């Protein structure tokens, strides 16, 4: 069983913002809502680093813990999603999230908040897979098509990787060995310990 995660390799990100554009286009995200964005530290100075940030689909998600109406759920593959029919737009999840992932569309004249919107790992939401209702509320469901999130799949430098955390860790580990530095960031297995559930290899 996969545990879906994103990893952004700051050594490779060139701040092109293509992931941001791809996400907005793929899901037809409304104006003012950015499910993904690129953060740059030390901008314009030596040692500048950029990193693409969205919902990290936390193993122990704080948004799930604080939601007063319990509209969050986690799929069997570790993707954190929510039911917009239940969301009351209170914004607690925004304050709880360390990555600033929850976004709120402004729906009224006086800046009233709408229902929360966030990265779905291109997994849609609690509607019929690839239905119009799912697309309108949550965007395209690429996982149901056997594809990974578009932001990661179209990243030109492959700085942003998305998919099973253990596979991503292997890819990153190989890179670290090739470039000979960064051993301290050897993937999710190091950061989070063992997988939540036993991994089953698909039968061939």
């Amino acid at each position, binding site marked *: 069983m996969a545990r879906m995660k994103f990893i952004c390799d700051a050594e490779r990100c060139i701040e092109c913002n293509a992931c941001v554009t791809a996400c907005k286009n793929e899901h037809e995200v409304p104006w003012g809502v950015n499910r993904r964005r690129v953060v740059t530290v030390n901008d314009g100075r030596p040692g500048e680093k950029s990193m693409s940030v969205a919902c990290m689909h936390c193993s122990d998600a704080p948004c799930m813990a604080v939601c007063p109406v*319990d509209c969050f*759920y986690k799929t069997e593959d570790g993707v954190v999603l929510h039911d917009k029919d239940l969301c009351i737009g209170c914004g607690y999840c925004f304050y709880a999230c360390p990555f600033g992932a929850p976004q709120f569309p402004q729906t009224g004249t006086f800046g009233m908040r709408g229902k929360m919107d966030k990265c779905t790992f291109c997994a849609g939401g609690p509607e019929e897979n690839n239905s119009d209702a799912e697309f309108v509320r949550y965007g395209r469901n690429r*996982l149901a098509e056997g594809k990974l999130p578009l932001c990661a799949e179209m990243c030109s430098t492959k700085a942003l990787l998305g998919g099973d955390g253990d596979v991503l860790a292997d890819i990153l580990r190989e890179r670290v060995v090739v470039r000979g530095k960064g051993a301290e960031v050897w993937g999710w297995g190091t950061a989070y310990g063992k997988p939540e559930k036993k991994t089953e290899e698909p039968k061939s």
Partner: protein
Amino acid sequence: MKRLVAAVLLGTTLALAGCGERSQQVSYSKGRYAGKPDTPAWAGDEFKHSRADWERAIKARNLRQNEYERTSGRGG
């Protein structure tokens, strides 16, 4: 007379049906997901409920993100 009684009964039934009030309370269990159930990714037409096929497809795409695999001719 029978027709009148039948008409009155039918009319009363229809009139009272309009007075029905449904509970608008969501069945709520604290600390548990309260929304609609979701269908798994492999439940659609693409994979026809075959989780193994879906996992194989995802893993293949996952490995394709490793350009060392793609350029060295090691497969993937």
